[in-house]
Each structure stands twice: as C-alpha cells, then as structure tokens.
C-alpha cells in the first residue's frame, strides 16, 4: 500500500468473473504522514481509507468484468462499518462481489479481513463510465499490471 499515491491495493489474489468476485491483499505501511495526524501517538488506518480500499478492490473487479473498456468511480457507500482498529504494518485481505450490474453503474458488497476476521464491510455503488481520456486508460492498465491483473490489462483484453 502506497498511501501517498493512493495505491491501496498491493495485489489481486483471485478473480472469478463467472461468480463476479475478487480477492485482493494489501499491507498497511509502517510509517506514513497520515499516521502523524491520525492519530498523534496512536497511529490508526483511517476508516475512510479502508472504505477506499474496498472501493479500489471493487473497481478492479468491475474493470476486469468489462474487459478494461470502461472506468469505475465510487459513487455511494451504504452501511459502511469499521469493526476494529487497523494499525500500521497489518496485512489485510479484501473481498468484493458484484451483486448487480445496472446501466452505467454496479453494486458491490465488499469486506476487509485481517487474519480471517472481518474488520470492515460496506455496500458500494460504483459508476461505470467510459474512460475520460487515453492517459487515464493507460494509467489504469499500468496499475492493473502492478496489482497482477496482467491478462485482463492487455491492450486487446
């Protein structure tokens, strides 16, 4: 996880397009300026960034589902729960399932686990739109390769 670049997912572990599910993992950095403010003397991963971690996992799932033809953006979050503190250096697994594909949007159920125990979950509405420009599309494909979605990130994918 590189908080300063908003790269919250390290790797895609599993992608099942038939079931419309994905599993990713990430490790909270040991140090970050974020922890200097949240909180001084008691560093905790902010819940809003855990939510973004679930959104990015959902985004990779939806981008893979549409064959890297369209971008996804977090539009709404419902029932977001952060069940325990998440601290620097901890390793997380994130799961997401697409429960509905609408026209221009999708709904996902996302969960975060630490050592098999659920630490957070949310229902997310993701907008699914055309890439606004070629640069973003290229960056998305590059990031897909970084997290291990190599086959789906091919230009002809």
């Amino acid at each position, binding site marked *: 996880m590189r908080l300063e670049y908003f790269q919250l997912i390290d790797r895609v572990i599993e992608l099942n397009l038939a079931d419309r599910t994905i599993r990713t993992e990430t490790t909270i950095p040991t140090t970050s300026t974020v922890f200097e403010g949240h909180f001084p003397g008691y560093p905790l991963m902010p819940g809003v960034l855990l939510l973004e971690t679930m959104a990015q996992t959902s985004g990779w799932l939806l981008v893979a589902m549409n064959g890297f033809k369209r971008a996804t953006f977090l*539009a*709404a979050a419902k029932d977001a729960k952060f069940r325990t503190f998440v601290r620097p250096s901890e390793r997380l697994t994130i799961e997401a399932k697409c429960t*509905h*594909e*609408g*026209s*221009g*949007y999708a*709904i996902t159920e996302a969960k975060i686990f630490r050592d098999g125990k659920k630490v957070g979950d949310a229902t997310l*509405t993701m*907008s699914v739109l055309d890439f606004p420009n070629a640069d973003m599309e290229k960056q998305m494909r590059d990031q897909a390769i970084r997290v291990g979605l190599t086959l789906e990130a091919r230009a002809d994918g």
Partner: protein
Amino acid sequence: MSSTFDTIANIIAETCDIPRDTITPDSHAINDLGIDSLDFLDIAFAIDKAFGIKLPLEQWTQEVNDGKATTDQYFVLKNLSARIDELVAAKGA
C-alpha cells in the same frame, strides 16, 4: 397488485425522502421532484430489482444528449412507467 406507477412512486418516496402524495404520474423526476443523478442510481437499482429488468439509463441519456429524445419521454413518471412495462413485456416475450 400495485401498478407500475405506484411501485416507482413508492421507491422514489422512500429513496429520496419525498412525500408520497406529492408524486404524481405527471411529475418529472428531475424538474419537478429534484432528483439528482446519484439518487437516480439508487432509484434505478430499486427499479431493476423490483421488476427484474435493467433500465437502459445510458441509452436514454445518450438519446437525450443527441436530441433524439426529450427527458419528458423517460423521466415523467407516467412515461417512465410505460417504458418499464415495455421492458418487462420484452423480458417475458
């Protein structure tokens, strides 16, 4: 069995916290009820689930942007109800 209009009016009332008795068949979802695009995603999701369809929002938006349709055709609720009935009928055909 409630009508298509009643179902979507109830969805809108619940989703957007709009008094149910102010929602009529002639209400325009955007111009009269003030529903924005994000709230309409929630409404579309609820309609998709309730009727087992997929509202073609992107197609409709494109048609409006291209000048091939007016928002009235899709977002006045009696017209939206008719479009939904067509989609339900097409699904069962």
